[in-house]
């Protein structure tokens, strides 16, 4: 199995506070990797090191190396724009832009220089289809995106990410604001997407991690305590702390 992403000794500091204490993890291509752990343990922070979004927060410092297809994304010759084209991100709260559904999806491709109307049309349609949203919105793609439901907005955000044709998709608690039906639609979608993408998903929902992921990493206080195949981790945790967490005996 091919390693798509590899992190070595990744440490993140927010001013004086160290949020990650050296994370080493291999993330496999075309697999779903779930990151679980209690609130504040550094899951989101780690996710943001993969697309270098932490840099935008004043006062952060990142150490260590992250390789995407064997290339260190923190090396000087890496172009962040190109990196973020390859590594898309879905945030916890769906944030649709104040423009039409169509313009939301076309936003990314336009950044990367696609101007041709026919080409944009086809990207928008393809992305909305891939995000399981096309059927619901095809009649109103030129209407404001703010009119969509929460679950639809989250799928629109995913379509927007897919439209730039990334290789890796980072999802930070994508279902936390969704109702059960939207959540199961989203999980179904993740299952389909992994055929073409490498997915890293942060979730607080243990059942969800067990349902959607192939690999699971358990974070605690800025450290990766345990990382293995999802089944193994949930059935046979090696570390006492992992066991306490997944069985709910944890703070």
């Amino acid at each position: 199995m091919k390693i798509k992403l590899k992190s070595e000794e990744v440490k993140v500091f927010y001013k004086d506070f160290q949020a990650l204490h050296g994370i080493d993890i291999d993330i496999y291509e075309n697999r779903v990797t779930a990151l679980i752990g209690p609130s504040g343990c550094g899951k989101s922070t780690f996710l943001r090191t993969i697309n270098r979004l932490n840099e935008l927060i004043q006062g952060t410092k990142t150490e260590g190396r992250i390789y995407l297809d064997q290339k260190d994304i923190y090396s000087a010759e890496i172009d962040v724009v190109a990196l973020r084209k390859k590594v898309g991100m879905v945030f916890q709260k769906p944030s649709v832009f104040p423009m039409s559904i169509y313009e939301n999806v076309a936003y990314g491709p336009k950044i990367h220089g696609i101007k041709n109307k026919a080409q944009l049309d086809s990207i928008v349609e393809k992305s909305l289809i891939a995000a399981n949203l096309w059927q619901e919105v095809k009649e109103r793609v030129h209407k404001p995106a703010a009119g969509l439901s929460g679950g639809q907005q989250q799928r629109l955000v995913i379509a927007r990410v897919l439209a730039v044709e990334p290789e890796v998709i980072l999802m930070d608690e994508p279902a936390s604001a969704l109702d059960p039906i939207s959540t199961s639609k989203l999980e179904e979608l993740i299952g389909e997407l992994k055929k073409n993408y490498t997915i890293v998903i942060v979730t607080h929902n243990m059942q969800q991690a067990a349902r959607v992921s192939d690999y699971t990493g358990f974070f605690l206080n800025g450290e990766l305590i345990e990382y293995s195949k999802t089944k193994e981790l949930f059935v046979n945790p090696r570390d006492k702390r992992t066991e306490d967490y997944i069985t709910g005996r944890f703070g």
Partner: protein
Amino acid sequence: MGTKGKEKIITVLFWFSALIIIAILVGIIGYIVVKGISAISWDFITQPPSRAGKEGGISTTIIGTIYLTLVAMILAVPFGVGAALYLEEYGRKNTRFGYALKLTAETLAGIPSIVYGLFGFVFFVIFLNMGWSILSGGLTLAIMILPTITRTAQEAVIAVPQEYRSNSFALGATKWYTIKRLILPAAAPGIVTGIILSIGRAVGESAAVILTAGSSLGMPLNITDPARTMAVHLYILAMEGISMERAFGTALLIIVLIVIINYLANLSLRKLARQ
């Protein structure tokens, strides 16, 4: 008394204060219309003043007002919005410099216009030898409204949800692309509000304008020409007892002009935001 009763009284009170505000507004405008309408005619709008404004129209002052306001806006809007964008999007947050700038802007916004006028007179008119001119007046008015434009633009930019930025950056957008496509359109209504407030101040300003653009009744063609604005004209007509009727006519046209300018500003910026 029950909650319902209280609710009712409060509603009535609010309704009453809204009514008073509307009544005051309607009263003043109504009074100006009644007193001024008789002075207004096609000639009043299109003819230049003669005999110090006793006769003729006020065409040169209308042109002077528009010209001066336009120059002030062209100078102030890009700088004000640019400064706001720099402070909120590019500069480091919570620095002493940023704080000092914010404080300066707030202090500057509170300084009486005549002080700006005095500064403009000494600096532009005399020291830089620009004389009484549209340029001196425009620069002075620009400095006067810059704090308002900067602060309102800053507030409008701050109000744009942070998630827009992180989502845009995560898609690979640069800062400038994010500003152009996302932040400016979302902040446009707030920025327009600041611009409209500033236009109102510039059009209505008299003291600072007399000191820097003069009160010549000639038609201002060049930017180096002196000019009299409608507000200055109104002031002189009333103060020197030239004609109360014409003063009210001028006042009425100032209001009409402000309404038209606001409408156009709203329209053009909304169009801009849609692009």
